[in-house]
């Protein structure tokens, strides 16, 4: 995968951030590191603290405790100017048109106005560039917000529910945009409550629930995106012990009738069959199962 081509350079470091609203503990001692080139998904159900996390690292919400750094530096406005962000809702002046609104964002980010048409083209709003923002549909507003985040072609993007309010075609378009940006090596941090979305575009994921970090890591490990292999033999106990001695086998789990396992990349079921045969075990059944992400995810958050 492409993210592995990069040396691990931390873009964002979050150290023990907590935030409470009255009695609600919105975030509980969250620590994360996000490295250059990662497409990092923050996944969690409604109210799990995703927006709170992004709001804190964008300096609009004050954490009760904890620290964070961008590009290895203390948070400051110049760092934010280098990040393209879409937080929760599209925020624009309703009486200004798309060009006028983006021109204000350009001034803040020190980006030349000539970039406006480029981003409007990417988000398919060029033909409506001179309409007032208040006349836009929900999906068009969301597109404009995404366009604003792309101004200045930033190396880091921070997107909170980027496909919110979009039609299926819009969702597909936005995912393609994100994938293309990722392929250019940009670092993307994306919050979503949609497993499918995170699974399709992210390389890494952190799962939040009620402000607690449940798990984090490369997406294939966290969501067990790898295919599962299952094997059956006469003596399941012996089979299990033997599997433990075979190179490249991991995540061995026994059910009453089968044993599930994962094979490391480059090793296939023929390899497994032969390795077991060499150790004197004959399999009565060997199969490959598509991963059930939904089940994995629900297992994590419950």
């Amino acid at each position: 995968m492409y993210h592995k081509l990069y040396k691990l350079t931390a873009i964002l470091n979050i150290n023990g951030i907590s935030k409470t609203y009255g009695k609600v503990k919105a975030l509980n001692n969250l620590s994360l590191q996000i490295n250059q080139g990662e497409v990092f998904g923050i996944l969690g159900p409604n109210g799990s603290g995703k927006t709170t996390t992004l709001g804190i690292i964008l300096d609009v919400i004050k954490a009760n405790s904890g620290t964070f750094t961008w590009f290895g530096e203390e948070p400051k406005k110049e760092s934010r100017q280098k990040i393209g962000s879409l937080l929760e809702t599209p925020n624009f002046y309703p009486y200004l048109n798309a060009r006028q609104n983006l021109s204000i964002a350009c001034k803040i980010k020190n980006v030349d106005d000539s970039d406006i048409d480029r981003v409007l083209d990417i988000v398919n709003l060029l033909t409506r560039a001179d309409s007032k923002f208040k006349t836009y549909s929900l999906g068009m507003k969301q597109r404009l917000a995404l366009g604003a985040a792309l101004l200045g072609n930033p190396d880091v993007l921070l997107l909170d529910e980027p496909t919110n309010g979009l039609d299926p075609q819009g969702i597909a378009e936005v995912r393609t945009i994100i994938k293309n940006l990722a392929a250019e090596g940009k670092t993307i941090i994306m919050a979503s409550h949609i497993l499918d979305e995170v699974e399709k575009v992210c390389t890494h994921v952190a799962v939040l629930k009620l402000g607690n970090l449940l798990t984090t890591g490369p997406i294939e490990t966290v969501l067990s995106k790898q295919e599962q292999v299952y094997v059956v033999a006469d003596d399941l106990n012996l089979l299990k012990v033997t599997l433990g001695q075979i190179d490249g086998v991991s995540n061995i789990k026994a059910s009453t009738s089968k044993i599930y396992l994962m094979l490391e990349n480059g090793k296939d079921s023929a390899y497994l069959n032969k390795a077991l045969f060499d150790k004197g075990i004959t399999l009565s059944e060997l199969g490959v199962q598509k991963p059930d992400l939904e089940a994995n995810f629900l297992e994590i958050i419950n």
Partner: protein
Amino acid sequence: MLTLLQIELKKILPYKTFWVIFGLVFLLIPGVFFALGQVNPMGGKDMFSFPNVWNNLTYLASWFNLLIGMTFVILVCNEFSFKTFRQHVIDGQSKSDFIVAKILLMVVLATASMLYIFIVGALFGLVNTDNSAGLTEGIMYVGVYFIQALGYMSVALIIATLIRSTALSIIIFMLSILIESIVQVIIGIFSTAGIENYFPMEIIANLTPNPIMEAITVNQQAMQAGMQQPGMPPPAPIAEAIPLSTNVYIAVAYIIAIWGITYFILTKKDIK
């Protein structure tokens, strides 16, 4: 700094509401001033000539300064209701940029109003002055009017930052004079130190003194000096007024304090 001002102008130049209110103010000031001159028993000429025109015109314009303050409430509340302040911070502004930008904007608006008042006053004066009084006599009232405009807009800034909802902020802004009067009366009952005369809205309002009261005070002072002027009404007992220069210093101190407190309020809250 220049960039911050450019951004502010990009927001308001295409904003219709802003132009409607400012257009009305700029039309009504000379219109009402002229009309008042026609109904004035002393005649318009006296009212419009140098140096009286400056005190008279700025006193009238001070009522419209309240309207300018209200416009400023709307401009600041917009940043909260459109969530554009939040977006600006996300995009890379700081909270102090927000305050500095609004201060720059109010300086520009106050300067524009002051220049306009200067032009209107100069025209009325030049047409109506027969005596030897020059244009610059009493012109300090125009400068003081500028400080008053800043004062009302600063009060607007802090109210809008505290309350954030446009409708409620406008109401509180309008009521602030009344609220202050009530507090003044209560304090006046319990204290004899006279601090109730130094409250912000009153200090700002007094920057453009009522010309009729001015005349009475002058008359009274003249009488005390033993120079009774015939034809003037007998002096009414007037509370000891704060001299205009002192009033200016206090107003400037209030304005700077309000800017500081507004910044403090902003740093204490999450940006919603």
